[in-house]
């Protein structure tokens, strides 16, 4: 049988984009969360938190904004879990399974659509950060690097979210499972340096996947040292993407519980 993976993915993507445009509340939701965190941490806690930081990082917003941007990427990607799970409750997915369609097309269309919405929501969050006084001073090359890393991270987290969505029994469960991921940046260097945390927590914060990503984006946008963080961040993304995609495909092939 001749497969039409690309054509089928494009067809499925058109369907997903229509869904997103007609039912945009999930996308809007993934902008709201990070923006509220931004307002809370800058407006309410900013002065106190900023006082505990080494000087010369462009104020607390300069430290915080890259972390919030990563949080936006995480919550945008994780919204895919709910989208996938809701889609599976629609009878039409069973119809797709009885048609000679490339099995990957359905999932990859969801991934591409989710990446588009995450790019939009992350851009919106970045814009709010700039309005609140975030002044990145980065070269064009550094911007490209930062955006590139954010895209790779979005890709990896989205595949993981697809797997979460596929194995969740209900949309409610699908929205709970990724909460861990969305809050993981908190126990990283998003809001405060890992080195300032208590022993144990500090080690965890240093070695969890979000910290190198945050440190790299922060370094690229505000000039703090990056060290090996860039390589480690990309390596984490590759591992998460490969694991997530493998898990997602096998879950989709097996079908749902029965």
């Amino acid at each position, binding site marked *: 049988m001749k497969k039409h993976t690309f054509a089928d993915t494009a067809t499925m993507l058109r369907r997903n984009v229509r869904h997103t445009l007609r039912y945009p509340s999930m996308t809007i939701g993934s902008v709201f969360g990070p923006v509220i965190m931004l307002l809370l941490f800058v407006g309410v806690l900013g002065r106190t938190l900023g006082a505990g930081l080494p000087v010369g990082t462009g104020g607390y917003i300069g430290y915080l904004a890259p972390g919030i941007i990563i949080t936006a990427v995480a919550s945008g990607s994780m919204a895919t879990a709910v989208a996938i799970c809701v889609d599976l409750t629609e009878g039409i997915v069973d119809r*797709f399974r009885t048609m000679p369609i490339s099995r990957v097309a359905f999932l990859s269309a969801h991934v591409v659509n989710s990446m588009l919405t995450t790019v939009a929501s992350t851009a919106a969050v970045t814009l709010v950060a700039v309005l609140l006084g975030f002044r990145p001073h980065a070269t064009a090359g550094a911007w490209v690097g930062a955006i590139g890393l954010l895209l790779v991270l979005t890709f990896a987290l989205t595949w993981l979210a697809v797997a979460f969505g596929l194995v969740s029994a209900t949309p409610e469960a699908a929205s709970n499972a990724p909460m861990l991921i969305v809050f993981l940046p908190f126990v990283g260097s998003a809001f405060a340096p890992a080195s300032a945390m208590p022993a144990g927590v500090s080690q965890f914060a240093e070695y969890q996947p979000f910290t190198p990503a945050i440190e790299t984006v922060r370094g690229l946008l505000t000039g703090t040292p990056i060290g090996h963080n860039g390589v480690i961040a990309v390596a984490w993304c590759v591992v998460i993407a490969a694991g997530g995609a493998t898990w997602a495909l096998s879950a989709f092939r097996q079908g749902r519980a029965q």
Partner: protein
Amino acid sequence: MTETNSHAVAVSGLRKSFGDKKVLDGIDVNVPAGTVFALLGPNGAGKTTTVRILSTLLRADAGHARVNGHDLGQDPDAVRASIGVTGQFSAVDNLLTATENLVLMADLHHLGRRAGRRRAAELLDRFGLADVAGQPLSTFSGGMRRRLDLAMTLVSRPKLIFLDEPTTGLDPRSRRDLWQIVRELVADGVTIFLTTQYLEEADQLADRIAVLDGGRIVAEGSAAELKRLVPGGHIRLRFTDAEQLAAAARALGADQLDADALTLQVPSDGGQAALRSVLDRLDAERISAAELSLHTPDLDDVFLALTSR
């Protein structure tokens, strides 16, 4: 040319269990191309499981199945390319319009942009959905939804269509509309594999009926053949007192009497002559019945007789 090639569906020894629960316990089914086959059974008999296996949604634990000549296990994509499935739960995209749903199907079948749109328009017309083609599905009734569902199945002109309880939950009018559509499909040479719990539906549409109960096929044949499996029709007479009942039983030579209900059953084919002869004999003995009713066996009797445990 082997026999299986002329069969749209050829299944032998199909088995499926979910955990400890045996759902299908060795099913053999052969459906000649161009006919309507009905799988009839109560809820939980295994009808939907059978359709899910034959439409590649589920893997059987054991058994052989060929669908349109393709081996189900070895070439599922060839099977998928030749079938259409409409289930009891609507398989439509609720966030798209009717046209968008049909064009989605056309695109996934790679009909090409122009041909796909033409096919969509044609089906909207045929299923009486042209007026609501651009409306969101949230405004659709159950009957409209089911018609769109079937239209989506037909986009690729499949040779074999699985209809899994296609009229469950529909009002009588929508049910009749759907039956009409099925008859038109059969006239076009399409094979229909139908599951239903409505005997009337099987009687109306099917060339052959298999009664499925507890994961086994307990009877198979045409509607007429199945009806012959249960005791024939009878005339039922009710009397006002036991004396009359006894006299009638003597006069008619019938022994199926119910002394409490004061009723007597006389075997009969329900024809005019048989009825007249009973009435004549009653008249001759000056016995008058309070009530007379004719009972011909229908699939209900067959169903109850075969599926009672």
